[in-house]
């Protein structure tokens, strides 16, 4: 009797115990980990504005900006003159070379913001070609200075001479004469022009429409007579490359890119340095032309062409 009763009660207890277990697990979500909500944290890292810029390769006035701001979502650019942008990485075309203050304001969604002003320097950073002059110091013969042909004339460019400048090509004083080019009355041009007239010619490729300097040294003896219009060394730049010297001279006389007449006759071995500016043509294909018009011996050495500063 009693026993059965107990037995039922006991089983009851067992069931309840198990029920309890299930109950406990039924609310196991109570053991779930509580995750924070949006905007529940304080923002400790605030925006900081910064940027860098670089000129466009083709158009240096078009400046491309790179946004280097931290912790921000919106951007306000001020390029001056009322020009603004809200792009992240805008580009802006400035009027020309110069220095322009540009301001960037970086803001985050909480409204925190930071501002930076940077002086943007806009300049043309084009680097002109430095042509290399072959045998510019006339140390190894005449070949590099020849026209490939010369109608009714000679292709030999000058008289070789050992009475060149005391300076070597790099401008260092050698303490002795170096090789050079020489002109005499018989090889002179213009008033003395003949089939024997000699022109030093070398074709160059330079950057188009760019300012260059033609540099060379010359010396003229000062003993004896003067050629009509004074003894002189003419150095210049021809507009274009020419196979035939004849055409070159025509072009040169008609429209040279540079024609410099040097008449300092300070005597043999006393060289004068010429630095004559010229602007290259649209193709960049130009040529050096040097000749003498002189009764007495005249000398040329260390011919250089380089971009004007």
């Amino acid at each position: 009797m009693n026993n059965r009763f107990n037995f039922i009660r006991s089983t009851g207890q067992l069931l309840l115990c198990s029920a309890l277990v299930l109950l406990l697990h039924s609310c196991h979500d109570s053991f779930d980990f509580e995750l924070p909500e949006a905007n529940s944290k304080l923002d400790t890292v605030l925006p900081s504005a910064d940027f860098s810029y670089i000129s466009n390769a083709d158009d240096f006035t078009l400046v491309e900006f790179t946004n280097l701001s931290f912790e921000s979502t919106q951007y306000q650019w001020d390029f001056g003159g009322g020009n603004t942008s809200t792009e992240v990485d805008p580009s802006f075309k400035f009027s020309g070379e110069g220095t322009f203050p540009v301001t960037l304001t970086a803001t985050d969604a909480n409204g925190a913001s930071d501002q930076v002003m940077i002086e943007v320097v806009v300049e043309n950073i084009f680097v002109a070609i430095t042509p290399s002059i072959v045998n510019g110091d006339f140390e190894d013969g005449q070949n590099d200075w020849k026209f490939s042909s010369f109608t009714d004339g000679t292709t030999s460019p000058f008289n070789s001479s050992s009475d060149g400048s005391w300076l070597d090509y790099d401008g260092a004083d050698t303490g002795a004469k170096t090789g050079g080019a020489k002109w005499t009355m018989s090889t002179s041009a213009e008033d003395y022009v003949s089939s024997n007239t000699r022109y030093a010619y070398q074709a160059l490729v330079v950057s188009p429409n760019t300012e260059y300097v033609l540099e060379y040294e010359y010396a003229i003896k000062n003993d004896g007579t003067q050629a009509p219009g004074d003894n002189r060394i003419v150095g210049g730049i021809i507009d274009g490359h020419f196979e035939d010297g004849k055409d070159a001279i025509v072009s040169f006389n008609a429209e040279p890119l540079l024609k410099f007449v040097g008449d300092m006759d300070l005597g043999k071995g006393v060289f004068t340095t010429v630095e004559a500016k010229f602007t290259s043509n649209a193709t960049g294909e130009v040529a050096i032309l040097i000749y003498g018009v002189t009764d007495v011996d005249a000398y040329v050495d260390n011919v250089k062409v380089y971009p004007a500063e």
Partner: protein
Amino acid sequence: MSVKLTNYSNNSIWTFGLMILLLCLPFLSRGNTHLAEAPKPITGTITSIESGLPLIGATITVKGTSAGTITDVNGNFSIDAEEGAVLIITYTGFKMQEVTVGAETVYNVVLQPDVALLDDVVVIGYGTQKKSHLTGSVSKVENKNLDQIAVARVDEALIGQVSGVNIQASSAEAGAAPTITIRGFGSVNANTGPAVIVDGLVVDADFLGNLDMNDIESFEILKDAASAAIYGSEGSNGVIMITTKSGQAGKTQFSYETYFGRKEAFGSDAYKKSVAEWAAKELAENGELSNTTLYAQEIVAVTGIDRDWQDVFFDGGNISSHSFSARGGSDRTTFSASLRTLGDEGVVITDNYRIYAGKLKMDTRITDNLKFGLSATPSYSKRRALPTSIHNPIRQSPWLPIYHTEETLQFIDRNAYPDVGVGDYFLENHLINRDINGDGSSSRPRTSGDMNPYAQYVEREHYEFRTNLLASTYLNYEIAEGLTARTSLGITLENRKRTRWNGTLHHAQASRASYQLQNRSRTRLISDNTISYNKQVNKHEFNVLVGATFQRRQTENSIVEGTGYANDLLKNLQGATTISEFEEINIEKNKIGYFGRVNYVFDNRYLVNASFRRDASSVFGVDSKWGNFPAVSVGWNAHNERFLNEGDLLSRLKFRVSYGLTGNENFNVGDDIINSYPYLALLNTSNAITENGITPGISALNIANTLLQWEASREFNPGLDFGLLENRITGSIDYYVRTSDKLLLENPVSYVTGFSGGIVNLGEVRNSGWELELRTRNFTRNKFSWSTTLIASTNRNELLNFGESDGALLEDGFGRNSQWINSVGNPISSFYGFVVDEELANEFWDSPWIPINGTAEDVIVKDLNGDGLITEEDKTILGDPYPELIWSLTNEFSYGNFDFSFMIQGSLGAEVKNIGDQYFETHWQGRTSDEQAVVDAGIIPHVSFLQPKVLTNDVVQNASYFSLRNVNIGYNFSRELLSRWGLGGLRVYASSQNLFYITSDEYDGFNPEFIDTNNSPRAYGSQRAGTPLFRTVTFGLNVDF
């Protein structure tokens, strides 16, 4: 009630405990009728409720008469008494019981132990102690039916048996070790497993795999520091003490125990795959099917294969065990010998485990006061391990056949694969250049490329062979009354050979074939020497112990790898043409310990226990080798006070408080040499190739820490043991706070130093929690009895100090960047990342349906600081891998010769980082490349709002579960039958593990308890779905003769 529970706190545990208490509150059954009758022969058996074994020599007398008898060796008796007479059964250590003779003539009486009288003895460090004298927190588990739980290792059988001990089936592979933590993770980098001590000898924890449960008498778990402090540096994570059975003097007892069982895996529905399902989804979404889908359908049409790979890989398996033992001896010498073999096929294809273990234990009394004993426990095991994590093969395309058939050959691009024939492995890559609809696109659903998932497993053979021997001898000399000296020498030998054969067919490229041979030989020599003195002067009991212990551990590791295999004929180095790797590392760790303990008891009421240990370890710096580990604990047996011991209600009440220090010397920074010689600045060879030849080079190996010292834990543990209603209700409640500081941890340092980290003593972690053990004998009647055991424990883990590394983030070992944080105020290795706001609509995925059941890898996350963009600041703690509550509820019934018991066991409040979805839903395939489009669509304010799921709480899943861990129903044949068959005992039983196993709804994987191997304590609790849990059903037989 449920409200109370919803805001979890220690109270809810109380509520929980109380509920059980109330519900299961038993009540005494009385009342019996009187009818006068003539004497008649009464027979029956007297057994003990504890052991269920017959009580030999119990006295039976008829009340009010002189008639009496005693039970025989089988506990049987016969006596004449008339109906209505009252039989009085008495037996020392048991409560006297009265039985009124009724109509029946057979009375099987089960006696209750009288706790007041009987005081069972508990094994403690370097000795034993009366349970009533315990002042620390020690749980004892006797091996009643544990040996009937069909598991390959003894530790697996302990699940749910002891409060405060968390045993996780962290790998469900056959023969693989579970993870045991006692009272939480007390360490960050040091090892967190308890010390294991077999018959007084320290062994490596993995030795638990070599023991046969049938040999085990009992487990004692020293949980609090005061109890473990006598082991000093071994004890910081608790101690599991195992006592093995020894022989009894008298007739030799033979017994044979066996069981056969079947294991079946629980898969995961979340990871089921099928082309049909995927096509349906896609059709519903897009109204048309992509080429890739049509592609798969075409193949399915031919092969008829559209399968879930789980069905192939989770093939279930058998488990069987045979154990034979003989125990007995003379009055001078006793012995115990046993042999055992166990085979476990595991539930996944290819995994397999077999162990052969023997045990011999012999004790002999040379003279009256000189005892000598030796024991040897040899074992050999062979385990075939899974070659790769299980996620790998079963994430593959459902349409992929294992082998080619005549039909499937038509799909092959013969230019690329001229020689593939029928019966060869089918690789997805065989389909290259196959353009099904002539649109020039040969894009195919692709998940496995040139690995055949099946071949990936069966063509690789990864074995582990272990040969272990634990041998020990002792001399025990009783110098004088109560003064005993003992010296023992123990040797643990382990030879572990691992072979990893990757066959020529496991991958499309035969050149991938390789073989690795790993040999590890470990020896541990221990000499324990103690002198103890016991004295009882009327009410004063003393127990004094002093001792010294010496330990030498040596490990020799070597690895050789061979490549260049032409075929599978020689699956070892013989077949190799190139030796591609070789390594040899030998290490040595030594230790010296001196210890002493005083134990004083006054009148069984006031208990004091103090111990001290001083240890030196070779691991630490020259000037910091020595550590001191004192402990003190006191207890008060209140029930022995005069003012309390009246009345039945309160039969036991003991208050205990203990405080102690323990240490830890073991840590793992992934390099055995650094683990052993961290205080030395070391160089290792780092050669380079110059002038086409190898040139010897060296480079610094570590940041030496000359001051490295013990990691110290101090634990405070108040506790209460109680017994109510003549111990029908017994139990204990413990609270503990364990603070470990000077943690041995690998502190990450800036790469700029040239190192990634250095081992330091840094940081402080606290574990605290409640433990409840409640045992009730709900109902006891001579035929029927029912008892309930409830075990529950809570743990809270908190990092108190982490120095420089506070807030340090760690990434998982899978290169998927999911993160952990170690920050003060939170549990160590908390999961860390973004909080998911919403899923990303699949119009933005690159390929939502490809290759198979894909989902977007990206999700939209919450902007926690509202600044309009997602940064590190918007990451937060997403959970932690430590359960807040683990519990078990056991009920045991017996009715006559039948008994039935079951245990429900569960865990609550842990999370697990399961990146299984990453693989099974092939997330990376779905990651959107065009974040801007989502912004432009006005769905998110900024691209950073799109984050990979693996960085969010999407992969952090609730790991709570509860399961019917064990069910056991058995029948013990009656003495009559047995004696007729000449047997001492015969039991048949059926048992089952995990008959059901219920996980949280949000958990997708195969096993919420699984912990992947490339976890470190600082980045703990991650898995790739894990190896599957399983249900085991076994039938067993125990015979004694």
